[in-house]
């Protein structure tokens, strides 16, 4: 039994702290994946010609064709926000669980 508890598996969290930590990880990765790759697949689904033109490319946003703005500018902003959000969540979790940072 004492040997059994030393296991780490991202699909089988070990303990309360890790359970919450891993749920945050999946949350961030899901948003990250859907925004990055889901958007490209969406462009593909709604396209009216093989070059990928659609209402998403016709739309003007801040001067940009919408798809160009979303990928070229917004995704990087989203990445930074996701990182900040993740860090705030983990900091909060560590504080709640009394996991002081060890240097």
């Amino acid at each position, binding site marked *: 039994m004492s*040997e059994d*508890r*030393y*296991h*780490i*598996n*991202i699909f089988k969290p*070990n*303990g309360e*702290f*890790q359970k919450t930590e891993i749920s*945050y*990880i999946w949350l*961030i*990765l899901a948003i*990250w994946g859907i925004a*990055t*790759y889901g958007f*490209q*697949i969406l*462009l*593909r689904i709604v*396209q009216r010609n*093989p*070059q*990928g*033109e659609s209402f998403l*490319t016709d739309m*003007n*946003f*801040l*001067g*940009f*064709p919408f*798809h*160009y*703005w979303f*990928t*070229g*500018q917004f*995704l*990087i*902003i989203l*990445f*930074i926000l*996701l*990182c*900040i959000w*993740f*860090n705030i969540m*983990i*900091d909060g979790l*560590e504080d709640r669980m009394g*996991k002081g*940072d*060890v*240097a």
Partner: protein
Amino acid sequence: MESSFKLGPAIILVIVLIAFIGIGVGHKAKDQDDYWAAGRGIGRIGAGAAIASNWMSAASFLGMAGLLYLKGYFALAYVIGWTGGYVMLLVLMAGQIRRFGKYTAADFIGDRFESQAARLIAALTAIIISLTYAIGQYKGIAMMFQWVFGMPYATSVIVGTAVVLAYIIIAGMLGATKNMQFQYCIIITAFIFPLIFIAKKLGYFYLIPEIGYGSAVWDLGHKFAGVTTAAGDSLENLKYVQPWGIGSTYKWIALCFTLMVGTAGLPHVLSRFYVVPNTRDARWSVVWGLFFIGLLYWSSPAYAAFARVQNAIAGVQPVKALADAIVVTAAENAGLPQWFCGYLAAGAISAAFSTVSGLLLAAGGAVSHDIYYRIVNPNASESSRMMVSKVAVFGLGLIVIIFALKPFALIAQIVAMAFAIAGNTIFPTFLLGIWWSRSNKQGCIAGMLVGLFLTAFFFFWGKGNSHWLAQLIPFTSSSLILMPVALFTNIIVSSMTPPPSKEIRKFLCEQVHGIEFD
């Protein structure tokens, strides 16, 4: 781009280079720990600037704008791959790597998988990745030396390397870290200010040209859409804007994914986490690093779009050969004063230098620390390790010169290969090493060897091959398929062989993941 000697830019470049060395000398490395971890006292923002400066290479500074200039929306896959990888790195690995507390990627792999063979393979892989990536910097260095001094390629390669080596060996990593913040300032100011000038000249919103270029992209898709060129219709302005005008959806996704896992698997990126005092700082330094990198990557597409509009207005066709110099030519075309173009060139060279020095240090570390100290001679004294490290950095610098003088593929392809190797070997090994305690040395070794072999195979066999398999696994974007292949090789082989020792699993739980058992 004429290549004659230019006095103003030359003076600025020399001043910047002397400042780098001067700052380096002011912060000599005291001992091995200092040399590697640079005092651990540089704070979150400082560490973030170091991450960004270490990261931003000639490929980011010059190559990316060049690719965007030629390929438009397709090349945004580079922008997203090279930033999105940091999200994965942060949520899956950054804190854990810091808590594991090792200096190099090979150290982590050797200790986690309790195997000297795994350590050796990881060290050699790290050396291959670092050298390949360093070779990729030389096109940028040479192009800028050529523009400023009128030097031919071969001379610039040798002079450039000599300066980098002198700087590394004199200052060690403490100097490098301090330097990196200074270098970041030079790089980013040199990159951002000329854009304002260019946007104003073309009549776009110039206060924030990163937003103003949107209208330039719009114009390329509408006002200038009809400009077809004899140079081949892939350079047509309309295709520049269309999502799949140049590359297919699959190619976009495969490329982006490869660059993401490659970023999260580059040894010199992974080893940045040791220069911060604790895990919380390690995590926050990624945020700052990503923001600082973002400043550059928001601006590259703007250079590219403005350059295409300049072409359309002047009625000239985009020229492939000029693409890598597009940042400087766009500024020159807009009438930016020559001394400022010199500053821009200095920024490009700083970007290349900071990356090359980071890479050579990582490779030198792999030789002196991972191979010499941990495998060959565990009783080596501090001074002899320091010595080996310096000799290694010097020797590796010479190897880089030789390959840079005669590259075995296009520079951009060589860089892409470094990412594919990192993504297909180091990344899956770290991922399983941290997140699956059952993964063992047999699995790790099998996974890394399969990753290495298949990456090399598809690079050399798949290049220019129309076979369906080569289309499925594009030679520079192989990770979408090969990273999972290497990952599952590790999982399957690990499952068929005995689990790792209780000690390492205990360490993984208690130390790396901070689980407290009662």
